[in-house]
């Protein structure tokens, strides 16, 4: 298991999560958990995904997510889960 956190922020509209999920489906990235909130018209979304079947490099993932983000007008970031675990769990 290679757990990675995807975060997305931007102005909400239809099709944002669909676009991200499509990319994951096409690239063998399994989604383990999704949570999101919408405050006024802005969406904050977090996904926990598994990259063990993903064939490209982390750098390519970051670049691809930038492209998907540009299409749907959101900022999308990928980070290894450990940074959050280290900071928020003793």
């Amino acid at each position, binding site marked *: 298991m290679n757990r990675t956190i995807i975060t997305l922020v931007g102005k909400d509209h239809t099709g944002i999560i669909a676009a991200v999920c499509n990319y994951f489906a096409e690239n063998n990235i399994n989604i383990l958990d999704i*949570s999101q909130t919408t405050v006024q018209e802005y969406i904050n979304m*977090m996904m926990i995904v598994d990259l063990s079947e993903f064939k490209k490099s982390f750098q390519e993932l970051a670049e691809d997510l930038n492209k998907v983000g540009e299409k749907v007008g959101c900022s999308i970031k990928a980070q290894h889960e450990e940074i*959050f675990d280290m900071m*928020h769990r003793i």
Partner: protein
Amino acid sequence: MLELNEVFETNAMISGENLDVRTITMGISLLDCCDSNLNALCDKIYNKITTCAENLVTVGDEIGLEYGIPVVNKRVSVTPIAIIGSSACKTSDDFVMIAQTLEKAALKVGVNFIGGYSALVQKGMTKADEMLIRSIPRALACTDHICSSISLASTKTGIDMDAVKLMGTIIKETAVETKDNDSIGCAKLVVFCNPTDDNPFMAGAFHGITETDCVINVGVSGPGVVKTAISKVKGENFEVLCETIKKTAFKVTRVGQLVAKEASKRLDVPFGIIDLSLAPTPAVGDSIADIIQEMGMERVGAPGTTAALAILNDQVKKGGIMASSYVGGLSGAFIPVSEDSSMAEAAEIGALTLEKLEAMTCVCSVGLDMIAIPGDTPDSTISGIIADEMAIGMVNQKTTAVRLIPVIGKKAGDHAEFGGLLGSAVIMPVNKYGCLDFIDRGGRIPAPVHSFKN
């Protein structure tokens, strides 16, 4: 399972509050490079650094990308060059040649600084130590990536006043050599009392002789994160204030610990220490002065500032020590003037004086740092300021340092521009009364008693 708000809290620290890992510093021992032939010595130094640190920059950038946290600087520290060059160097020019070799190695591996153009002379200078010290003005003028530090005092040995006197002159000469760039050479030169062997921060980093062959030390940062956290407890009592700083320091240090462990694994080099120091940059919101002001000071330098800094320094340590088992280096709060925009502003309007800064150094982790002073300040006065700071460190058993920049051709109230992370600052006035006869005495100030403490 992680919560949405935790993930967004971390990312807000990174994107909005300037949380970063300030430096991954690889300490490299050059003891096995020693040779009596200067050319052979230089070849060995170049080969050792470029082999050990070959992947340092790539790995630092990779980690930054994968964890989404900027790893700002990648640096190297080496064994004090006065020791390494002692049998090969017959003149100061020979030492300059080593400095140029280090510069070449820095360019090759892509690090932004190599620290360790250093001598440890707290009890006395060898011939090599003195030659290295006399070579500093030229070495720093003909290189861009080399940092020099000289240890002049310690609690156990006292203060080497001959070296203090010499350094007053050397700092001025370094200023003159780089006078066309607001004497920037002095920004790469620091003198210490009780220096640490594993400090990852420049200009004072060197790889101590008791250290292992190659080691990874990491310096974290995050003044903006602490400031934001404190702003949420406005008006609360000191218990709440301390608790808030401690918790924030814990979170910041954990990130450093993760990056250090990961860098150590990927480079196959042992992990040394995390330095907890809160290090500011000239960027807005990345300031120690802002933290002090958020605590309740109208301006940093106002009465109460020393107490506020003491709280900050202590709570940062308490939080950080819980977060990592190996804490070292300087680990506290840095108070450089030019590198901290709010500190520079306070100096500009007269809220912060050299004397108040000296008092603040009694409770923080470094000393008089990045302070621009008039270019015509006498050598002996610079030595006097150094002696005062060394005495504070010696008596209080703590690290203190002095990094002064006598800006040639400028006077108090003028401005000096150093650029980049070094920032800019107003030139602060220095007490005009002299101490020449005191500095001219020569010899050593004995170590203080270690009992009868009251």
